[in-house]
């Protein structure tokens, strides 16, 4: 509890805020005419050319040191960039995970050789990453993973299976949590992270179609995949602690409050028209805004903690759980508003966006940890466990 007491309003430094103007000018052009139901996909949208363009402009890996292709900027600089990407609904899914967490993970735990090998391509928007955590028998109970990397003369021999891996079919690399010693019963002990080139023989990736008709999640099979000795990321046996630190990056970002923002803005455009404006809609607009704004302030406060080198794991879980609530309220409440009206003059594009967000909204409360897991983490932070 005491660690949460210090979540106070934080300022985005002026030099980082200054990026907003430049990136917004670019996005205004790049996103012109893109319909809302496409923008609604944002970090679920795959567009390698767009990622390379962002890389060319120096907007990927912006927090990495210049020696590895980055700009050496603070977490606030990245916050401003991704807040704009998300609010414009830019298709940033290709590089999203690499920029958000795989790159920072390699930077923190990787060897010098690994950093030089992998990070510049992330900054150029040419190398895309996915996260190998869940397995068919290991979801919320992540410490029970069974995929195993066994040391051999050539390095590590990888066997097993990952599932619910976002974007694996479009990625070049996976950083996977695997067992390198002991048995499943040893839990957090004996787990390590390895980087897997997904083009290696023995790797099979199969997309899973979700209820919206899109395919983000994948199954990934490893059948005697031979990894080099330099595939290990960080310490052998240190995988659990590394994954925990990584999840603070995964859960704290602005993508945890803006998932439904394209729908909210599209609905607002309709409600601003003379036929769309009603007192009920006005009140609902204010309700959603009053929930989103404090979350944004909390997200900025967490970013400040990241810039100070802290790992605000509990605060991030708190913001994500609360953010999910607003993100899922938006499609539910907007549907109620639109279909409580007598007149049926609602634009088709708004209905299509509502339909997409309604179908994809259940994913908000499972990706990055289910609500139950997040609340358990908060309870631990409160000293209840």
């Amino acid at each position, binding site marked *: *509890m005491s660690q*949460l007491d210090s*979540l*106070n*309003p*934080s*300022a*985005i430094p002026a030099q980082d805020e200054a990026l907003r103007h430049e990136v917004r000018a670019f996005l205004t052009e790049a996103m012109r005419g893109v319909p809302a139901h496409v923008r609604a996909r944002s970090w679920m949208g795959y567009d390698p050319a767009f990622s390379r363009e962002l890389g060319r402009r120096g907007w990927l890996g912006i927090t990495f040191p210049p020696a590895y292709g980055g700009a050496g900027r603070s977490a606030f600089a990245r916050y401003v960039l991704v*807040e704009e990407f998300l*609010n*414009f609904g830019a298709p940033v899914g290709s590089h999203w995970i690499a920029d958000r967490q795989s790159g920072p993970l390699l930077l923190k735990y990787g060897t010098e050789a690994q950093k030089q090998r992998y990070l510049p391509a992330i900054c150029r928007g040419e190398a895309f990453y996915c996260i190998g955590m869940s397995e068919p028998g290991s979801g919320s109970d992540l410490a029970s993973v069974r995929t195993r990397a066994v040391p051999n003369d050539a390095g590590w021999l990888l066997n097993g299976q990952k599932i619910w891996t976002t974007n694996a079919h479009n990625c070049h690399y996976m950083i996977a949590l695997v067992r390198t010693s002991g048995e499943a019963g040893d839990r957090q002990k004996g787990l390590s992270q390895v980087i897997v080139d997904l083009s290696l023989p023995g790797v099979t990736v199969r997309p899973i179609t979700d209820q919206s008709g899109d395919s983000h999640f994948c199954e990934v099979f490893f059948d005697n995949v031979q990894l080099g000795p330099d595939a290990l990321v960080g310490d052998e046996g240190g995988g659990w602690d590394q994954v925990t630190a990584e999840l603070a990056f995964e859960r704290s970002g602005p993508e945890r409050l803006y998932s439904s*923002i394209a729908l*909210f*803005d599209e609905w*607002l*455009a309709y*409600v*601003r028209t003379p036929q769309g*404006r009603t*007192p009920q*809609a*006005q*009140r*609902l*607009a*204010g*309700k959603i*805004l*009053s*929930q*989103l*704004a*404090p*979350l*944004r*302030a*909390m997200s*900025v*406060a967490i970013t400040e903690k990241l810039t100070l080198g802290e790992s605000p794991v509990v605060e991030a879980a*708190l913001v994500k*759980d*609360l953010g999910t609530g607003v993100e899922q309220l938006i499609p539910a409440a907007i549907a109620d508003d639109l279909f409580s009206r007598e007149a049926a003059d609602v634009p088709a594009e708004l209905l299509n966006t509502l339909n997409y967000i309604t179908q994809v909204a259940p994913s908000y409360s499972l990706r990055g940890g289910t609500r*139950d897991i*997040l*609340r*358990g983490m*908060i*309870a631990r932070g*409160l*000293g*209840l*466990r």
Partner: protein
Amino acid sequence: MDDLFADAVKALLTDQCTPAVVRAIEAGQPHAPLWQALEDSGFVDALVPESAGGAGLALADVYAVLELCGSFAVPVPLGETLLARGLLAHAGVSAPAGSVVLGTGQLASDGRLHCTQVRCAAKADWVLVSCGGACHLLPMASAHMQVAGFCLDAQLSWPQTAWDQAQQVPGAHDLVTLQAALYAAQLAGALMAVFSRTLHYANDRQQFGKPIGKFQAIQHQLSVMSEHAFAARMAAQLGLRTEGAVPDRLRVAMAKARTSEAALEVAGLSHSIHGAIGFTREFDLQLYTRRLHAWRQAAGSESYWHDVLGQALLDSPEPLSLELIRTLTDVVV
């Protein structure tokens, strides 16, 4: 600066504003000793310029003190008077001795000035009344008073001559927004008090052979309480972040709406976790949860302020709601 100030206020309230004192004052025992202790400390003049004998603090600097008014269930109008003295000082009016509360009035056909519900009026000396765009300072001594709603709140009326003869405060003053900023901060304090008391109780109370806080269902309810309490606290802090002498109306709208929503959630969960004991007068929880409901109602409930925010959002020409979100939350250090 403000932390030292808040620490001193906290020490005083810990000593002088115990749950027993709150109970006694609510039951009609004299409130003068507590008020005098607060007056003697000088905290009530926090917003008064140093040239006029005050501490010369800015609104954002007094957030912590206003939050403490909530977390200690202060049963005298400390927050109200602190804000009123700041307003009076900036308007060039010397504050009267004693406490001041804030109200909105109407001159009715019966020839009297009516204020339907004035918060903490039962323990106040003066009322700053806004009516028809003007603001006058009226004495409680000449008011007709009837307790209304929460036990410290009252309906007031005066003959119109009292309004006409009262000290006029020059300028236009938005007392509702000022009060909403106050009650948002007090709600944030009371929310934290209720949350930490409930956490403590869950660690203490044993059932089925272990503390109830060991059960996952209770842990998750406490986690949800903490989410609301911390989001509300962030919103309430932003409600007082302003460059000027008066709070920003839209930030206050966010602050009061979010804290009021949280009040309902947190009050409900805290009573659910406490079971029957939390419903008793003897147990302290009620001192804070009754205030959560009272302050949620004070100066506009969540829907009142949702309307204000919604209107601003719909009147904005910006296609991205992010613009207003940033306006509400960006701060400078």
